[in-house]
């Protein structure tokens, strides 16, 4: 079935009546920081929103929708000696609309972390259960895109409920899960008959060989390469914050009188106090060790644990690192460093 592009607005209007629809939108389309660079993110749709399905990758990834930048875990209150806790409950009902393959792959990585391996993270689970994901196949690439290096198919987003494929004046919509089939039923009034178009042939600036990456990285753990690489790192955490799959979080509390709440917040292993212990003992006291851990986690440790790479090749960190530390170049360098060792 085809969703004509002129019907997109009415579909989103209808969907917004049933759930929060998060769709790629320009932050500063009107007013705001005039003349500033365009930034995009998955914002709640409202009539008149500056929906931007043409942007290949949004500046902010859809990670916030499932793992918000800060999230209250529970609140507490102390009366006399008595302490009471009130748990946060997420009654999420949201549609992530227009998710690219790289970001969908990242959500699958988050699923592995938060939903498997002995413990289930309740707040993530609640959000995930209440989320319908609509994927959108890519028709163009940006210079920093390298998802095919991780064997991703830019035409089909892994794990999404409904996949959209650009068909010129419309989108071909197909359900890929039971949840998607049910949801697509409600879209019927906005759809017309049509056949699935052949996905666009995409050109990528580069494609890297990542088949042996994890193994190779293990052999170069002690290489001076990491020292050189980390010299210019600012430890600003931008790379982790813009990454759709970086999931590490910090936990802390905020008090006001006899009440307060405990919350979690995104964290970055490039921050100096990330693993600081009592007495200022820090197992990763140098930038070298912190940045090395970042790349090892993304490209080796996660794979050892969960079977696939924690980098999806979206290239956001490549574009936004203020000092130009480039994960694709690191991957390229690995071959050379290992050959030299």
């Amino acid at each position, binding site marked *: 079935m085809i969703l004509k592009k002129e019907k997109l607005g009415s579909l989103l209007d209808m969907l917004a009546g049933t759930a929060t629809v998060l769709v790629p939108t320009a932050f500063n389309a009107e007013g705001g920081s005039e003349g500033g660079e365009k930034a995009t993110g998955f914002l709640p749709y409202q009539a008149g929103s500056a929906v931007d399905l043409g942007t290949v990758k949004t500046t902010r990834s859809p990670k916030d929708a499932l793992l918000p930048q800060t999230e209250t875990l529970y609140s507490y209150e102390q009366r006399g000696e008595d*302490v009471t806790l009130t748990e946060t409950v997420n009654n999420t009902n949201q549609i992530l609309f227009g998710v690219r393959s790289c970001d969908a792959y990242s959500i699958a990585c988050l699923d592995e972390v938060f939903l*498997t*391996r002995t*413990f289930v*993270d309740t707040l993530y689970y609640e959000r995930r259960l209440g989320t319908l994901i609509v994927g959108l196949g890519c028709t163009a690439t940006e210079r920093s895109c390298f998802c095919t290096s991780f064997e991703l198919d830019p035409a089909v987003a892994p794990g999404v409920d409904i996949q959209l494929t650009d068909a010129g004046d419309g989108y071909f919509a197909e359900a890929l899960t039971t949840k998607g089939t049910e949801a697509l039923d409600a879209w019927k009034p906005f759809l017309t008959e049509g056949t699935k178009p052949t996905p666009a042939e995409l050109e990528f600036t580069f494609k890297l060989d990542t088949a042996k990456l994890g193994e190779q990285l293990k052999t170069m753990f002690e290489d001076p390469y990491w020292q050189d690489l980390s010299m210019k790192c600012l430890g600003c955490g931008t790379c982790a914050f813009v990454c759709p799959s970086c999931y590490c*979080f910090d936990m*802390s509390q905020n008090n006001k009188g006899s009440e307060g709440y405990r919350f979690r917040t995104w*964290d970055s*292993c490039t921050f100096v106090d*990330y693993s600081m212990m009592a007495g200022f003992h820090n197992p990763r006291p140098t930038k070298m060790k912190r940045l090395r851990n970042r790349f090892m986690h993304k490209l080796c440790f996660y794979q050892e644990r969960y079977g696939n790479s924690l980098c999806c090749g979206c290239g956001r960190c490549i574009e936004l690192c203020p000092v130009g530390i480039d994960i694709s170049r690191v991957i390229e360098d690995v071959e050379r460093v290992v050959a030299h060792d």
Partner: protein
Amino acid sequence: MIEIGHDCTCEGNPLVPQVCKVIEITTETSDVSSFKVQTLDGGLPFEFVPGQLGMFGIAPHGECMFCVSMGGPDWLEFTVKRVGTVTKRIHQLHVGQQVIVRGPYGNHWPTEQCKGRDMLFIAGGIGLPPVRTFLLHCLANRADYGRIDLVYSASTKHDLVFKEQLFELWPNEPNTHVHISVYKDCDGNTCTISFTAPFLEDLGLDVSNTTAVLCGGPSLYRTCSKALANMGIADENILTTLEMRMKCGIGKCGRCNVGEKYICLDGPVFTQAEVNAMLKD
């Protein structure tokens, strides 16, 4: 989306603690105290096996990871050294005060696999609490284990924890030898001033049948693992617990990794062979 296989032992949100109360506080040293905690209705906060961890803290001040140092039918004990912000607050607790507790976390001492073996426990300072549950398990099931040696050291006599058990209870257990040493000034003559590592070789152990359990600071760890290797105890038969900064305790926050292992979930107990294979920072 992944099918959820629930082998999660805790009901409800694993990051949300239960409110418990302190029922007893024992001052061990000038900066170490033990806290017995119980649920508000007088029950056990959680079931645990020796070696497992728990998050213990105070709602407005935060929580820290500790090994459960002892457990009774309706209480758990944490032995806490005062080192920083949260532990300072914990040390200001009084009996009856309400605290937050969650757990159990992590793997545990291989009590089953060690049956029939001689046990050599080596601990330094605040390294004894994590080892104690294993030692107590061996003593409670005395027939299952061979000779037991505890080699415990601290900077001074005042830094030894669990003094009553050390000096009065454990030495009287059958085939159990308690060796205590301090590195500095020793008033009274109950202990010798010595270093642990050289002492181990003189114990006359049947090394082929000995499992060593090692828990202490970096220097104790370094010197003793070398001594154990010299004595011919295989790396597979040396057990230790690792420590890393922890936040979630459930393998999600990413904080406590050493290589691809999460200490909170895959550890804290590892064999020396496993530790050797890790990519350590």
